[in-house]
């Protein structure tokens, strides 16, 4: 088969399989995947004229929202899925470039397809998260470094703005490069210095855009949420970040490995196993294969160690955070595996068999559901949208309206009805912003939406549940009218006009 045809087929099935797994989502009030609803809400609110961090609050990094907002603008809600698909396609081509450039391994296309297949089908994969996008962009940058170091560096910067905790991987990559160079002086002047100048230019351009559009609050907000993330991480891990005393260090190292998901454990063991198999049978490898194998192993030792350092920063590591480690393990294992069968005449059949055996796991109904969800995501269309479209100039707050399906798209642009920035209310956030949130309720907005599902509300508010509900009852009994018949929210309004409008 011609290489172009093979390439096109491979790209096509890579896109199909990515869509299948990206489109997978839970449709209920699920707290775990409820993050997707937070992202939708934030993009809808940005569209309605609210400023990120200043008027609406989330503790994700700046680049994550800016990058995804571009896709949201073009494609609507499915843009959040398409942005992940876009990242996967960049990764696919970069990996293909890395494999092809070395001219060592046969079956580059199946290898690139399989790496994407394992990355998207692994148990910790959740599309639309920064933890999914950032490591793939970093890995693409690493693969493209020999193609063009500026393109690669741009990808590094993009990944860092999406998830700043990916920095150790980039640092370790440059340590690897530093060790690879015979002349350290050459490395400093020919590699590092031009990149430093390039990064200064990028940063200056970014600052210039932010200042000229009067968006400097974005930087202040990013700084604030980075600080919040540090405090949050320290609260939840029970020790200070970078605490180096033996007790904290030992427990943190244990936690990185103990929270491995099942699939991450499998790929971790497979990576080590494949390394040893190749080392034992190194005589079977040709000179070029051996060279590539060693350089590649040398690179991946640095990268996997760095990815483990990122995991250390993410303690206690949630399921989807392991996406910072998985792509490195998967690509390393697959490259090693392909060395094992590289000389085998029918090696392409091995890949075809692997693909077929995994494809048996899918059933037709899932395929239908996932594809239709990708094209038309379940997004809470219409939920509260009628009430919100009738707000006019009235201010409102939404208690418990985070992580659940909602539709803010009917908010009138630039009216800024949301009375304060805390629509995102979870216990760990209230821990840090309790005063601001109580002030927000005390300001008594015109309309209050309160989630009806008490169990879910308890889950969101935790120890603050009783306190907030007590405060709410105090106000609503005296000054507010209850109105509307929304399935999910109690609606309290100071003014009966609004009640009449929505009835």
């Amino acid at each position, binding site marked *: 088969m011609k290489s172009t045809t093979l390439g096109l087929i491979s790209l096509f099935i890579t896109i199909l399989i990515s869509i299948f797994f990206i489109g997978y989502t839970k449709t209920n009030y699920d707290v775990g995947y409820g993050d997707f609803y937070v992202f939708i809400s934030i993009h809808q609110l940005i569209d309605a004229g609210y400023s990120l961090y200043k008027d609406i609050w989330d503790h994700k990094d700046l680049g994550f929202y800016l990058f995804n907002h571009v896709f949201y603008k073009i494609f609507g809600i499915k843009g959040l899925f398409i942005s992940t698909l876009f990242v996967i396609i960049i990764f696919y081509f970069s990996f293909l470039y890395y494999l092809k450039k070395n001219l060592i391994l046969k079956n580059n296309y199946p290898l690139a397809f399989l790496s994407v297949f394992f990355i998207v089908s692994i148990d910790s994969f959740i599309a639309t998260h920064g933890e999914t996008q950032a490591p793939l962009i970093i890995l693409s940058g690493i693969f493209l470094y020999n193609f063009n170091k500026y393109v690669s560096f741009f990808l590094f910067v993009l990944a860092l703005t999406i998830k700043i905790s990916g920095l150790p991987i980039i640092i370790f990559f440059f340590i690897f490069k530093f060790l690879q160079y015979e002349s350290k002086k050459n490395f400093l002047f020919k590699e590092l210095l031009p990149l430093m100048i390039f990064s200064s230019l990028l940063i200056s351009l970014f600052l210039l855009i932010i200042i000229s559009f009067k968006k400097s609050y974005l930087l202040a907000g990013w700084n604030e949420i980075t600080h919040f993330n540090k405090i949050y991480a320290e609260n939840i891990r029970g020790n200070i970040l970078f605490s180096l005393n033996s007790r904290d260090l030992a427990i943190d190292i*244990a936690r990185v490995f103990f929270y491995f998901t099942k699939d991450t454990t499998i790929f971790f063991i497979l990576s080590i196993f494949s390394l040893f198999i190749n080392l034992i049978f190194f005589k079977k490898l040709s000179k070029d294969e*051996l060279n590539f194998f060693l350089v590649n192993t040398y690179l991946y030792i640095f990268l996997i160690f760095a990815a483990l350092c990122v995991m250390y920063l993410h303690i206690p590591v949630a399921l989807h955070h392991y996406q910072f480690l998985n792509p490195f393990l998967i690509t390393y294992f697959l490259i090693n595996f392909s060395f094992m069968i590289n000389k085998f005449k029918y090696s392409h059949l091995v890949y075809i068999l692997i693909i077929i055996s995994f494809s048996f796991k899918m059933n037709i109904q899932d395929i239908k559901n996932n594809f239709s969800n990708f094209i038309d995501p379940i997004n809470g269309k219409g939920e509260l949208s009628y009430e919100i479209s009738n707000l006019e100039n009235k201010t409102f707050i939404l208690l418990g309206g985070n992580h659940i399906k909602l539709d803010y798209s009917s908010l009138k642009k630039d009216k800024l009805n949301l009375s304060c920035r805390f629509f995102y209310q979870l216990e760990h956030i209230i821990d840090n912003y309790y005063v601001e949130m109580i002030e927000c309720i005390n300001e008594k907005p015109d309309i209050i939406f309160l989630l009806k599902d008490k169990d879910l509300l308890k889950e969101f508010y935790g120890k603050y549940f009783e306190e907030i509900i007590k405060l709410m009852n105090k106000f609503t009994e005296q000054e507010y009218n209850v109105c509307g018949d929304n399935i999910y929210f109690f609606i309290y309004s100071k003014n009966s006009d609004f009640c009449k409008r929505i009835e």
Partner: protein
Amino acid sequence: MTHLSIQRLLKFIISGFQFNYKLVILNFFFSIVFFFFFKKLLGEISINYNFNFFWLKSYHLIIGSIGLGSFLIFLLNLFVKINQNLLKIFTTIFAFISILMILNIEFSLFLLLLSILASIFFLILNIKTKLLN
């Protein structure tokens, strides 16, 4: 890189396992220190962090301590052939850290990990220049 150089590299790595009696004694000393250090440390962790180590038995700790001690000796043994100065420096550092562990100094585990990483870093640099070129 050729098959010859990888053969030399593998031979070099295997030579790290050929302990002499001095290193075996040092291993014995390291293992005892590590055993008591980790026993105390894991005990503290289970109380402070409520981290359940119910599955951890003494023989796990003994095997782990001997393993870690042997790994340090393996690293030191690799320096024997390539750089005597580094061998002396890292032997002193590891011995010093084990004394810190006996004294139960707060940062001893961090220092141990840091020195292991530093020794690997210097090994890579030396292997590159002395063995592979």
